[in-house]
């Protein structure tokens, strides 16, 4: 349970970090390391070089305004969760983050790192996808903004190039008539979800105009299903598009069962949230 040897760089500016990534074959970025270090220790990954970005300045910001929440690459889950401004702008961030691992892991793990780690069993990639957020990515070629819809390629695989660093994630604010909710079933609170479900609804005068549901741990990428036209059977509409998989934690049939139970419940909670906010 020890990582294989690797070279280690701890740059002090983003430019140095990007140059190092561009110059080195097989280099990986180390931020919080709460997903990467276990992969290294279990020798499921063996990068030639780790570029540790923990010494870079100005990447730990959490800024919220009426448009949404911007989270820097070194902002730890615990700090994002503790940000009242972030949760006021987009309440789903805090709802989901309280389910991300245990507090000890949240103290070191970063929200942006979790997103580009692209684990379909993780909450924040799905939340970004459900909210149609974006990730700002830097490389020696410049900066670009990647919509969440274009971010997830496969299991633990993002569409970022090997020399790109995700520097910031943007979560759009909750619209005035909007509501959100989150729930998951795990063996212990803080463990990986067997199934996690989030809902985002828009309402006008208390009536739902749009409803989308995001799923954690059901497919091999974070998945969002639009159920606007299936409000009386959202789970049926979701299961028509999902292919729950077996693994050592749960059977496909059990996952489908959890989707059936959680989807209508979370959708109802989101509608209730929207009506509560608008007083409708």
């Amino acid at each position: 349970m020890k990582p294989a040897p690797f070279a280690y760089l701890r740059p002090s500016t983003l430019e140095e970090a990007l140059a190092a990534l561009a110059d080195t074959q097989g280099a990986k970025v180390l931020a919080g390391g709460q997903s990467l270090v276990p992969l290294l220790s279990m020798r499921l990954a063996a990068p030639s070089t780790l570029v540790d970005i923990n010494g870079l300045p100005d990447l730990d910001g959490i800024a919220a305004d009426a448009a949404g929440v911007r989270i820097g690459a070194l902002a730890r889950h615990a700090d994002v969760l503790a940000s009242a401004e972030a949760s006021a702008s987009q309440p789903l961030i805090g709802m989901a983050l309280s389910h991300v691992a245990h507090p000890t892991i949240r103290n070191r793990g970063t929200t942006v790192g979790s997103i580009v780690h692209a684990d379909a069993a993780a909450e924040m990639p799905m939340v970004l996808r459900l909210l149609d957020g974006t990730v700002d990515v830097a490389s020696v070629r410049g900066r670009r903004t990647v919509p969440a819809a274009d971010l997830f390629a496969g299991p633990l695989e993002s569409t970022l190039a090997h020399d790109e660093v995700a520097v910031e994630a943007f979560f759009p604010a909750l619209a005035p008539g909007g509501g959100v909710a989150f729930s998951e079933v795990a063996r212990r609170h803080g463990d990986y979800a067997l199934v996690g479900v989030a809902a985002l609804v828009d309402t006008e005068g208390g009536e739902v105009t749009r409803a989308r549901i995001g799923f954690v741990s059901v497919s091999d990428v974070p998945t969002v299903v639009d159920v606007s036209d299936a409000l009386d059977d959202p789970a049926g509409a979701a299961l028509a598009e999902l292919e729950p998989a077996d693994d050592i934690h749960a059977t496909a049939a059990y996952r489908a069962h959890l989707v059936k139970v959680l989807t209508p419940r979370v959708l109802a909670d989101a509608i209730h949230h929207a009506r509560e906010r608008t007083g409708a």
Partner: protein
Amino acid sequence: MITQPEELHDVRLQVNGSVHEVRVPARRLLSDALRHDCGLTGTHVGCEHGVCGACTVLVDGRPVRSCLMFAVSAVESEITTVEGLTEDDGTLSPVQQAFSDCHGLQCGFCTPGFLTTITAGLRENPEPSEDEAREMIAGNLCRCTGYQNIVKSVLRAAEIEREIERESGEQVQ
């Protein structure tokens, strides 16, 4: 086969108020650096992939898994291990005293991780309910399954801290 010697890094670790200058490969886990390079074997290593919590130390006052950090990444941080919880004269900290009072340890393997986690947990929430005490320790595993007494220890530690605070308040008056 000729293998190149692994590159070593000079790392200055600040642990329990002392500076340890160590020379380690980049892949040295902080848990191993504390144990092997600093000789602080109070930090225990269980699963080595972040699940069991036995290796939990405080990094700048916050509980962190030392098996999920590299020693080279810890250069700018102040680290507290279980050895750093005791007073200079050897007096047990309130959390340690509570574990002794409540039989909060059996084999003791998981205990260092619980002690550091609860020490930080009580700073954040000095008066936990029983449910909050359970939540505080939910990320740590005890292979003896002695959880009931660990929960009692959390509540007792909070009580001891309140007693100390009350006494120091009386002394001031």
